[in-house]
Every structure is written in structure tokens, then in C-alpha cells.
């Protein structure tokens, strides 16, 4: 769920520090609830919190509905509350009104450290077995060997270009950085401080002397290098984009010819649009979101049922296809409305997924393990981003 990453990347930043330092020092998570060994009868209701579009019940578009079948199947009446930012999600979740939450990479660790979500017994979630192994036991869903979240969907920030204008066909991000002046005024970039990671990723490959090991873990010198690169890029930017529609219209009209995009945007372009989206040689930034269960859930059985349901082939296909991201199981691919969906999102392509640096909030404690320096946190990135835009 990509379209809101400007928001996701949100606010949270600094407070994550707490969490991660807790994890870093291998402190025992405060979550004390024991893992259930078997499930009881379903309760009557289930209260969910998630990004808009993660639990559609047909009220926005009658054809888009994967909540109603769940309700009929389990007897759990679902209420879904969409949130706008991770920060908002955390404050809403604290009220204790929700049984489960779909959270992004930044929020998950805070929820775990705060003891607000319970470790899961994945044996009670049969469909979890089918989830791609490269999405399991990752740093944003597993702490101390305990799994706290089941994946919902994932995706990468790709490079899109107009095949008529951008020649030869690019294979590297250099078309939006060092070689961007060729397309002055028609280059686009994602409008969020987290885009600094894209520049860092580029420098990681092209300026090894800077010693960047993780694009979300930059010390002051490395950040300064990324900022310089982005300031140079700024001269060639036509516009920054943060919403879906803006990006589509600019590429369709030719106001933009090269820049970052999401696969879903590429797929929504009309047939006449001469564009291509690729995963460049340097790799790319991306996202992966998880469903987690509240440690004080009033309906834990319904919540387990939901986690199992959302990873079931049909529901996962519906949810991720509506959203425009890769599903988390291979079986989901058979249920996509369009047969090409899985191929276009490279679902299950492990080599592809390995090139994605999943989004993580930068914090002062270096994520790449360096102990001798302080890294720059998200607040610092935000400040830098404003200066880059000028």
C-alpha cells in the first residue's frame, strides 16, 4: 500500500527511536501475553484499523468487497476504520477499541515494543504457511524469534520513463540523477523526505567511498551527499508527486517523462501511453505491511480468523489487486481478475524482492550496525527535504 507512503513515513519518526533502542539492546518485549494454543468460538464483532483500501466492504464501490464474504463465513461483523498516518494509527490503537491493525514498517516495531500487539501462534493461521518465505521473519514483523504480524502485500518504487522520449532505454537510476539534465523540467520524484533513501541507494552503488550500507541509515556526511545529489536533481524536476492521479496525468500528457512510480500507476495508464516501468540495476526502495492483533483484543478469535482470511488466496488477491501491490502467496495469483497481475507485480520473484530496500524509519541509532557514529533521524530528513525543495 503505497500511495500514502508520504503519510506513512509520517510523524512517527522520532518516537521509533525508543522502540528500536529497546530492540537493539535485545530487551525482552514488554508484551507479556502468551501465545494461544487453540482458538475458541468466534465472537460477534471485529474492529479493524488499517490504511484506506485494506478492508473494503463494497461501500465505496459495490464491486470491491472482500469483507462481506468474511462476515458471512465467520459471523464476525467487521467495522473498519481507515487512518491517514502511522502516527494517527498509533494514537487510535492506544484507545484499545481495535482488535487488529494493518501497520507499516515504522509502526510495527513501536507497537511490539509498547506491548500493544500480541505475538502470534502462526499454527492457528493455516494460510500463513503459504506466505512467501522472504516476507516471513523480517525485522519489521518478528522480534526475538516471535512473529507479530502476517503480511498483507508488498511492492517496490520503480523507475518509469516515456519510451518515445527517453532513449536509450534506461537501466539505472542515473537518468533521474546524474543524467537528468537531458530531460530538464520533465523529471519527477516522490514528494516525501523518505525519497532521500532513493538518493542514498543510488550513492550506495555509485559512490562506494561514502560507505553507505543501508539507505535508511545515514550519518551526517552521507546525508549531506544525498542532499547535494537531490539539490542538483531539483534543477531538473518538473514537479514532485505524492498522489496517484497526479503521477498518471503527468506521464499521460507528457508533462513528465521520467521518474519514480509504482507498478499500479503503470498498470492504470491508458493503452496509448508509451511508458515503461522497470526495477533499475541499483535496486529500489519499497514497502511491506503487516496485520497484527491487539494484546487486549476483545475478539481475538475473530481477529485470528481475519488474519487467516486476508492471507487466503481469494481475499489476498482481491485486496492486493485493488490496491496495486504484490500478493503475499502464490495461490492468490490464481484468483486475480487479470491473469497478468502477478507477473506484472513480480509476485513471489525472490530475486526481484531481494533488490527492494523495504521502507524503515531512519533513527539516530544506525540501522546498519555502526556504533561509532550517530545517524540522522527522520526529523533531520524532513528538514533536509524542505531545504532541497527550497
Amino acid at each position, binding site marked *: 500500500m503505497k500511495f500514502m507512503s508520504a503519510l506513512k513515513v509520517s510523524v512517527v519518526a522520532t518516537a521509533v527511536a525508543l522502540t528500536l533502542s529497546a530492540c537493539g539492546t535485545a530487551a525482552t518485549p514488554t508484551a507479556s501475553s502468551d501465545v494461544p494454543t487453540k482458538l475458541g468460538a468466534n465472537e460477534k464483532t471485529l474492529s479493524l484499523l488499517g490504511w*484506506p483500501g485494506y478492508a473494503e466492504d463494497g461501500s*465505496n*464501490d*459495490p464491486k470491491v468487497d472482500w469483507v462481506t464474504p468474511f462476515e458471512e463465513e465467520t459471523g464476525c461483523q467487521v467495522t473498519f*476504520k481507515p487512518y491517514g498516518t502511522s502516527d494517527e494509527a498509533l494514537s487510535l490503537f492506544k484507545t484499545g477499541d481495535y482488535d487488529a491493525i494493518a501497520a507499516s514498517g515504522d509502526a510495527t516495531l513501536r507497537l511490539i515494543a509498547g506491548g500493544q500487539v500480541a505475538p502470534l501462534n502462526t499454527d492457528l493461521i493455516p494460510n500463513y504457511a503459504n506466505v512467501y518465505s522472504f516476507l516471513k521473519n523480517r525485522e519489521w514483523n518478528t522480534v526475538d524469534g516471535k512473529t507479530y504480524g502476517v503480511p498483507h502485500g508488498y511492492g517496490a518504487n520503480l523507475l518509469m520513463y516515456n519510451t518515445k522520449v527517453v532513449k536509450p532505454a534506461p537501466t539505472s537510476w542515473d537518468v533521474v540523477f546524474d543524467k537528468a539534465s537531458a530531460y530538464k523540467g520533465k523529471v519527477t520524484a516522490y514528494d516525501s523526505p523518505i525519497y532521500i533513501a532513493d538518493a542514498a541507494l543510488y550513492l550506495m552503488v555509485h559512490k562506494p567511498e561514502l560507505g553507505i550500507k543501508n539507505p535508511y541509515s545515514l550519518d551526517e556526511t552521507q546525508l549531506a551527499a544525498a542532499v547535494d545529489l537531490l539539490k542538483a536533481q531539483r534543477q531538473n524536476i518538473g514537479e514532485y508527486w505524492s498522489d*496517484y492521479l497526479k503521477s498518471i496525468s503527468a506521464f*499521460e*500528457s507528457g508533462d513528465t517523462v521520467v521518474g519514480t512510480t509504482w507498478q499500479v500507476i503503470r498498470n*492504470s495508464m491508458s493503452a496509448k501511453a508509451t511508458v515503461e516501468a522497470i526495477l533499475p540495476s541499483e535496486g529500489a526502495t519499497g514497502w511491506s505491511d503487516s496485520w497484527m492483533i491487539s494484546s487486549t483484543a476483545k475478539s481475538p478469535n475473530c481477529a485470528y480468523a481475519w488474519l487467516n482470511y486476508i492471507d487466503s488466496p481469494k481475499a489476498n488477491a482481491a485486496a492486493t489487486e485493488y490496491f*496495486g501491490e504484490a500478493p503475499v502467496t502464490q495461490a492468490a495469483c490464481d484468483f486475480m481478475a487479470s491473469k497478468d497481475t502477478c507477473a506484472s507485480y513480480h509476485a513471489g520473484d525472490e530475486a526481484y524482492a531481494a533488490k527492494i530496500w523495504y521502507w524503515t524509519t531512519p533513527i539516530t541509532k544506525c540501522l546498519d550496525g555502526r556504533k561509532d557514529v550517530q545517524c540522522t533521524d527522520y526529523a533531520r530528513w524532513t528538514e533536509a527535504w524542505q531545504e532541497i525543495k527550497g
Partner: protein
Amino acid sequence: MRLSNTARWTLGAISLLVLTFIYVPIAVVVINSFNTSMNMAWPPAGFTLEWWGRAVGSQGLLASLGLSIFVASCATAIALLLGTLISLALSRYKFFGRESVSLLVVLPIALPGIVTGIALNNAFRTIMGVQLSAATVIIAHATFCIVTVYNNVMARMARMNRSLEEASADLGAGLWTTFRLVTFPQLRSALFAGGLLAFGLSFDEIIVTTFTAGSGTQTLPIWILTNMFRPNQAPVVNVVAVAMVIVSVIPIYVAQRMAGAESKR
């Protein structure tokens, strides 16, 4: 001023040009609501009624429309009450601080929405510890809507014939009776015009709303904003806009009729 015919025609031509300027983007919206291309590309790719059908069937849209009407009605009602009270006070009494009061009424609209928005957000959440909801949106909207009622009523009061009120009092009518039977009828069209503007301001407000609405509170502009980001929903948004423009003719026409009828009297 006796304008020469040339001047009249020139003014007329300019006015026509301005109206064209006003309606070209609206026409673009109308055309796009029937456009098969989902991305508002120009020229239109083909004709479809799909978006109109989808808009009618969208519960989320209808719910947010309902909420917007509710919020705008409540905000307008509060603004009408407070705005009338304050204009009665300011137009009938001279007192120390009168100027400051009039400034105070104007302030919420004169300061940019983002300032009002973050100020109220901070006050509601951190100071009062209230959960953001439809009620907080109504409070915020009412605050900046008072001014439209205030200005319309003040202008009317300035032109109003005070002798009627005095006569009413002399004939033994109480304050309330005088207000109800003498003052209010003269204010009616000003209240309607002020209320209409207040309703419109509230109905289309997005910046202050963004900061004062809870996550479950989805007014129409917020629905539009989130649907701009949602796959395949953008054209439905155009339909909403076109429908709103068409429906808006009714209240505007009524306001005009009221004002027209009064000026003839």
C-alpha cells in the same frame, strides 16, 4: 453615470469573457465525468455513463455527502445564531471594545485556514483532550462561518428603518415580539444569503477540516481527497462536482428571489 454604448458593449464583452473563463474549467469537469479515460486526459477518449452509475451506487460517497450536509447545516445554524446576536449588539450599541469585537469576528476567515486548522487541532487534542469527531469539525466551521452572517446582517441593519421598531415598542410590544414581528422579517433575506454563504464555505472546506476531523469523519471534500488517491475512483469525483453545481442552482435561485421580492416591496 451615463455610459456610452461603446462602453456598455465593452463591459458586456468583458463580462462574457470572464464568464467564459469561469466556465471553461467547469466544462472540462463535465466532459471528464463522461470521459472513458480515467485520468482526465485531454482530448476525451470516449463517452461513458459508468462514472455516473458508480457515483449513485457508492455508499461511501452518499454517506460523506450526508455528513457534509449535516456538518454544514449545524455550522450554519450556529453561525446564524451567533452572527445575528453579534450584529444586533454591534449595530445597536456603541461600547468600548466594539472595534475589537468586529475584528474578532473577521479573524477566523482572515487568517489562513492552515493556521486556524493547526490551532484548533492543538487545542482540541492536546489541551482539551477531546477525540476529533464530526462535532469538532462543526465547531471549527461555525467559527469561521459567523463572519458571513455577521456581514450580511450588519449591512441590512445599517439600511433598516429603526422607526418601525420604535413604533412597535411604543405600541407596547415586548423586545422579543418586536424582534419576531418587526426586525426578523426585515432580516430574513440577509440571513438567508449569509446562511447560504456559510453553508457553502463549510461544505467545501478542506484545510481546516483536515485538521479537525477524526479519521472516521469523512466529509465530502475529504472523501474526494482520499478518492483522488484511490485506484479508478477519480472520474467519480468529477460526477460529484457536476452534480453539486447543478443542485446548487436551487438555493441560489431562492436567495435571489427573496432579495428580488424585497427590493420590489
